[in-house]
């Protein structure tokens, strides 16, 4: 199987940034419905800073690159999503280590580490109506596809699909974490903003991490 390079990861990050910019207002609208209406602005501030941080000066190794993304998000996003997305990328980077490239299995394991970081930081469980509800099934789908011998591109597509399905599944849920939990029952009927941005993250991966953008 092919290897994932720092360039692939960079393409992923850029595509994620592009999707966040494109969906900035939509994310904000979702957050206005059950949160405080800043998720689009928060994520956009973060991904804009990430682009500036990697522009020209992107670390050469996958692990270092992804860590840089994580520290930049932590330093610029604030709110709930900043530490969570930041932790995701920091753990991803730690898992990728110092190697020059990573195998799909390495990346899948790193994604799992990232999601575990999110859970550790935010203490949310599946079903709490958070980004975890998109991230967890995505990583599981990716691992299962690889275990079933599917291609890396297929595994990423499965992950993106699972993330989207996870996002949709948050709509009927009653939030138990984050600001939306203040609404109690009234949080049901709206998709979770963080799960929506997480689905964008996986969609970006599917379009880039298997070399799609090269």
């Amino acid at each position, binding site marked *: 199987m092919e290897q994932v390079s720092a360039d692939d990861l960079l393409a992923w990050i850029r595509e994620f940034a592009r999707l966040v910019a494109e969906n900035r207002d939509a994310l904000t609208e979702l957050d206005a419905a059950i949160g405080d209406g*800043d998720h689009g602005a928060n994520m956009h501030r973060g991904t804009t800073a990430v682009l500036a941080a990697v522009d020209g000066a992107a670390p050469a190794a996958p692990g270092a690159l992804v860590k840089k993304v994580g520290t930049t998000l*932590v330093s*610029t996003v604030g709110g*709930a999503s900043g530490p*969570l997305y930041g932790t995701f990328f920091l753990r991803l980077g730690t898992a990728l280590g110092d190697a020059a490239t990573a195998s799909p299995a390495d990346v899948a394991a790193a994604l799992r580490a990232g999601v575990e970081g999110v859970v550790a*930081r935010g203490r949310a469980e599946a079903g709490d109506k958070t980004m975890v509800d998109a991230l967890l099934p995505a990583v599981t789908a990716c691992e299962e596809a690889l275990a079933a011998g599917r291609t890396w591109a297929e595994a990423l597509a499965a992950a993106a699909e699972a993330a989207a399905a996870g996002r949709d599944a948050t709509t009927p849920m009653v939030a138990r974490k*984050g*600001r939306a*939990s203040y609404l*109690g029952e009234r949080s049901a009927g709206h998709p979770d903003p963080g799960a929506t941005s997480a689905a964008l993250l996986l969609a970006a991966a599917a379009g880039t991490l298997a070399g799609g953008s090269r």
Partner: protein
Amino acid sequence: MKKLINDPADVVPEALAGIEAAHPDLRVDHANKVVYRADAPRSGKVGLVSGGGSGHEPMHGGFVGLGMLDAACAGEVFTSPVPDQVLAATRLVDGGAGVLHVVKNYTGDVMNFEMAAELAEAETGARVVSVVTDDDVAVQDSTWTAGRRGVGVTVLLEKIAGAAAEQGRSLDEVADVARRVNAGGRSMGLALTSCTVPAVGHPTFELGEGEMELGVGIHGEPGRERVPLAPARDIAAMLVEPVLSDLPFDRGDRVLCFLNGLGGTPLIELYVLYNEVHRILTGSGLDVARSLVGSYMTSLDMAGTSVTLLRVDDELLSLWDAPVRTPALRWGV
């Protein structure tokens, strides 16, 4: 949107520049958006750091000074500060006796302060203890939710714990006082109008001419319920009763009553309402030992109010009465 601002994107840094220009006792780390005491760090004194989203002024920058906070981190409007800011503040005020982080219970604030505390301990070896305020009875507390929000008690805690730190108490002692304040305080708020976030440009929520939002959060989060507009005496009851029954407060308790305006509320209305609140409290057999009436924890231009009750004893009262010199609270010095 009508506001006395320039570019909405510059509101926070420009307000910090204004604070610095207006208050010679304070300094501002503009890169990190930290307001701190000009005499920080004070060797041997526990440092008090708080912070949160902007838009709640004078909280927290207006509470920096002798007898209260040593530093405050200003996040974007209604967005918690990032760990870098909290770390910078922690470094600025660490006088060797450790640093207390005062954090309002919002997922974002808790996580960002948590990361900052981890970084501070790892990078500087400073001992950091965090106290999280969660006094808003409008939100149900349960282990299955993010828990109650931190609101008005934060102001009282920063004053009281600040006095304890100024007396030279240890980090654990100051944290203990702070936790006692949080444990003994409860709040409830109400909005007559929405606020308008500068970067958004329109009201966060719509409220009809004849409606109020009961149990609103300080970022415009929806409350317990939308109720018909009511006279001050009914509003006082709607706010005080859930507060009284939550702790619960009992006959004979001595309390500090903090009636807060949310930014667009004129003082004359706060006094009309305080008259009603005070009447209910004394009618319930409480001894209102101290009061604080004014706009100390705001929600931009929101018209509305919150009531905070804190059960006090001699020690907390003497810490409350201790000298304080900040832009927003000042006495005894």
